[in-house]
């Protein structure tokens, strides 16, 4: 297989491989790789640490029992799990329709050149970067106090819905944009109206992308704690919510409460609850990635 092209390297006047500074270049490459590795190693250590530390309490008592201040060895996080489910259900109830419809307006109806459209676009980009605690202030002032909804499941759901709305709008718009233009044109050319086209053709074709973005947005809401600190979730709750106007706590808040306790048993409990929370979030992410990979390259 050796040919005459394989000339002796030391006699070659042109350096084809080493680029003159092999050491500097190789070192540079390794430094870059280390930059990336730091984040990934950190993630691995974090996951290992909480799993090992929480392991003794990763038992059914974690979801069967209620929180307890006196007896950490028997305390569980059931009220936080049910509270999270209640709050996320209301978040989804408010955020999904508004997010989808708003995205449809921006992508299918609005004139992209108009000042108003550009203003809304910049506004959404900014909202996506507003600190989550500021949403807590909004929830406290508007939903809890001004609308007198109090520190309840529905206040938390509304607040988190506004928090994730920009994420849902942006991802839904991307999903709609990925639907080929010629499907819209095919429908419109048959005399379908804009809404018939959107509802019967464009949106169904965008469902996988919308689902992926929605799952990621809701998993962000599940992990969010800061705004709920202002909305009553920190009080000691050892009962499951009974309805939208019930008091509540959530998993991240329960973790926060246990972190503040000085006894080591509570730290173990916090670790176990973190593992539970991360398993839920990673499962949601996996589903999102699965949907994305399944439906890639449909057109």
């Amino acid at each position, binding site marked *: 297989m050796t040919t005459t092209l394989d000339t002796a390297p030391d006699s070659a006047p042109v350096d084809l491989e080493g*680029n003159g500074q092999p050491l500097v270049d190789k070192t540079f490459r390794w430094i870059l790789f280390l930059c990336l590795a730091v*984040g990934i190693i950190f993630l691995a250590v974090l996951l290992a640490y909480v799993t090992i530390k929480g392991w003794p309490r990763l038992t059914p008592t974690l979801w069967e029992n209620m929180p307890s201040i006196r007896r950490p060895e028997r305390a569980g996080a059931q009220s936080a799990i049910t509270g999270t489910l209640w709050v996320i259900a209301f978040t989804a109830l408010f955020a999904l329709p508004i997010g989808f419809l708003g995205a449809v307006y921006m992508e299918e*109806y609005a004139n992209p050149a108009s000042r108003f459209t550009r203003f809304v676009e*910049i506004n959404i980009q900014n909202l996506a970067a507003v600190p989550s605690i*500021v949403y807590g202030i*909004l929830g406290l*002032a508007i939903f809890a106090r001004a609308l007198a909804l109090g520190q309840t499941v529905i206040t938390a759901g509304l607040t988190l819905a506004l928090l994730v709305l920009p994420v849902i709008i942006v991802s839904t718009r991307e999903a709609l944009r990925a639907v080929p233009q010629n499907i819209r044109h095919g429908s419109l050319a048959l005399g379908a109206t804009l809404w018939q086209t959107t509802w019967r053709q464009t949106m169904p074709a965008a469902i996988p992308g919308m689902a992926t973005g929605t799952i990621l947005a809701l998993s962000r809401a599940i992990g969010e704690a800061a705004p709920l600190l*202002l909305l009553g979730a920190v009080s000691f709750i050892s009962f499951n919510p009974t309805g939208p106007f019930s008091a509540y706590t959530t998993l991240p808040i329960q973790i*926060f409460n246990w972190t503040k306790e000085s006894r080591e048993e509570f730290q173990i409990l916090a670790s176990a609850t973190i593992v539970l929370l991360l398993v839920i979030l990673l499962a949601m992410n996996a589903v999102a990635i699965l949907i994305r990979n399944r439906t890639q390259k449909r057109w």
Partner: protein
Amino acid sequence: MTTTLVESAPGGLNPLRQTKPRYGEKVIRVILFAAAAVSILTTFGIVISVLIPSLEFFAEIPITEFLFTTTWTPLFANPQYGVLPLIMGTLVITLIAVLIAIPLGLGSAIYLSEYASPKARKVLKPTLEVLAGIPTVVFGFFALEFITEFVLKPIFPGIQVFNALSAGIVMGIMIIPTIASLSEDAMAAVPAGLRDGAYALGATKRQTALRVVVPAALSGIVAAFVLGISRAIGETMIVTVAAGLQPNMTLNPLEGMQTMTSYIAAAGAGDVATGSIEYKSIFAVGLLLFVITFFMNMVSIRLVRKYRQAYQ
């Protein structure tokens, strides 16, 4: 060659006229518009909810005292409202985070964009993005229980249990994905022709990355930095859990400090009487936080638009 046009005056004769008045379409358009307008109402709601109590606050505490004095003791019998210690705490922790996140985030971005094989990229990028999906309360717990305890204490035996350093380090790691992902987008937008031109002149991969790609993507990279810093300033749970709740006018990262966000969280979570000056102080600090992050977000959005325009 005369074109005769049927005058479409008599109603209903023109077959191209609308046959039924599609009211539904109009109603739907209004509903969709309203949904899009919710985002504007949200911004409006934020501004109203921080501004009104803040104005009441500044009616009692002069804004100059708020902005330029150095004692923050809202719980004392004789409370003082000088916000500088909270700003100091925010700055110190953000600075630590930035010192970690900017080199690591940019390095990761260059590696992913210029060096990683498509296969490696497909694995590494989502893995890095998992970091962005970890709830911040978990990061706070890890900073307090692991970083302070097992990493920092052996190095700095005198470090306080609650300290700025652990919070800053973990926050830095937290914003790596933000910076890496946005920087990489900007670098990916650099036309291949620029790279090819550099290679054709005999530049190495490193020279091309540092002297061609990074400068060409600079406005996008700076946008990523600004957004990352904005996220660090607004981050609440890590500092609330790991940095302590003691306002502290110091530059020593081994001590505990309170930030703007952790003050809002602590005061808001406690039993504060509505209408009290302490209650209103939550909103005054919130207003300051909103204004700072709003300004930074706008800078970042502008910069991103700039590079998009340049390469599209």
